[in-house]
């Protein structure tokens, strides 16, 4: 395998594998959040488990962060390399004639998602880390009951944040609309047996972000 990950195709595999990991994480995340639509209690329980389980906190969480960082860094490196493969640009280029906007602008949808992630971290992750590891309060309690659901609801009161989240998820959808198929193609899964994947990919790319949006709107209107 020497040199595999420094080759062009190896990098495609790396991008695709990290993408798969992140897409899997998205399912987990949306599933957990969706619980908040139905049951405050269940959501609190699940959140507390995720927030305090050492396996998740000290293994999965760093791996996830690494995955995110890797996907972004690799994405940027590839983008820079790919741009340098055409020194003189076309005076006129009609990209829309042969490819989707999503596929040509992964770097921009990705960048917006990155911005969104930074805000998301500031909103949820940093306060959480602060409470748990700086302050040292691992109880997950606030005024005697679990704090998670209330915190969630609280965050979605300001309309500007809901709007920002919605836009963030729209960009996520755009990213996934190309990214899902692209990851499979990169791994070599494109032949007569994989035709069904395309439809599934579209559904995934739209439904997951839509679910996030619904959750955000739900809590905005139902606090």
């Amino acid at each position, binding site marked *: 395998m020497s040199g595999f990950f420094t080759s062009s195709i190896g990098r495609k595999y790396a991008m695709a594998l990290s993408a798969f990991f992140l897409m899997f994480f998205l399912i987990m995340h949306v599933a957990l959040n969706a619980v908040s639509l139905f049951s405050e209690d269940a959501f609190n329980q699940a959140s507390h488990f995720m927030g305090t389980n050492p396996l998740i906190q000290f293994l999965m969480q760093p791996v996830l962060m690494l995955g995110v960082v890797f996907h972004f860094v690799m994405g940027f490196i590839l983008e820079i390399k790919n741009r340098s493969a055409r020194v*003189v640009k076309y005076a006129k280029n009609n*990209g829309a004639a042969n490819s989707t906007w999503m596929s040509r602008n992964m770097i921009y949808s990705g960048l917006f998602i990155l911005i969104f992630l930074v805000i998301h971290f500031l909103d949820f992750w940093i306060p959480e880390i602060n409470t748990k590891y700086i302050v040292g309060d691992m109880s997950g309690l606030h005024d005697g009951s679990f704090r998670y659901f209330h915190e969630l609801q609280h965050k979605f009161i300001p309309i500007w944040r809901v709007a920002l989240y919605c836009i963030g998820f729209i960009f996520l959808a755009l990213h996934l609309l190309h990214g899902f198929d692209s990851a499979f193609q990169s791994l070599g899964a494109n032949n007569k047996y994989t035709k069904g994947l395309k439809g599934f990919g579209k559904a995934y790319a739209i439904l997951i972000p839509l679910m996030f949006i619904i959750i955000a709107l739900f809590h905005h209107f139902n606090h």
Partner: protein
Amino acid sequence: MNLTLKIWRQKDSKTKGQMVDYKVTDISEHMSFLEMMDVLNEQLVNSGDEPVAFDHDCREGICGMCSMYINGEAHGPDRGITTCQLHMRMFNDGDTITIEPFRAKAFPVIKDLVVDRMSFERIQQAGGYISVNTSGNTQDANALPISKHAADEAMDAAACIGCGACVATCKNSSAMLFVGAKVAQYALLPQGQVEAADRVKNMVAQMDLEGFGNCTNTGACEVECPKGISLENIARMNREFLKASIKG
């Protein structure tokens, strides 16, 4: 019809080029695009100017020599054709047509619209063959049955004419459709198995060395390819590459 042409003119690989405007008149809609270029060149020669250099040869869409980027698309706005098969009926009277060379770091401009595609040659030399000598006593052609399906699929991959439209059209100037087609053709045939691992590794290594970009699966190459080479070939190359890398 009367047209305005914006054409990239560049004296040689060392000189900086620029877009230059030309006018052509009385162009018949039945002309091919290259015949329209012939009219322009005849006009330029007669007025003592240098004609526009462009690559072309067979003019029936099979040699892969012609290579223009017309109105922002490789081989122009029609599908499943090369520039020489593009006809002027695709355009309207009074149109302005932008004509540029195929652009990629690995395809340096030689002159005007002529580019150097030697990078493709070097990739082929790195492994685009089956090592068999000409002896006259190779085993009988029917000694090795090959399923019709595999043979047909190999043929579809082998239909690549090496024009470079995939590279030109790819936003990353990636050559993976070209390389993938060749890798797939041999990977699909039993004759190609013995050298399969080395072939894909060597061809990909050479491709990377030439300065092509990386594939991001936009699929633009497949759409613009005059021979309809499928993206499945890139997927197959990726599989072959992984397989070869695991084998070590």
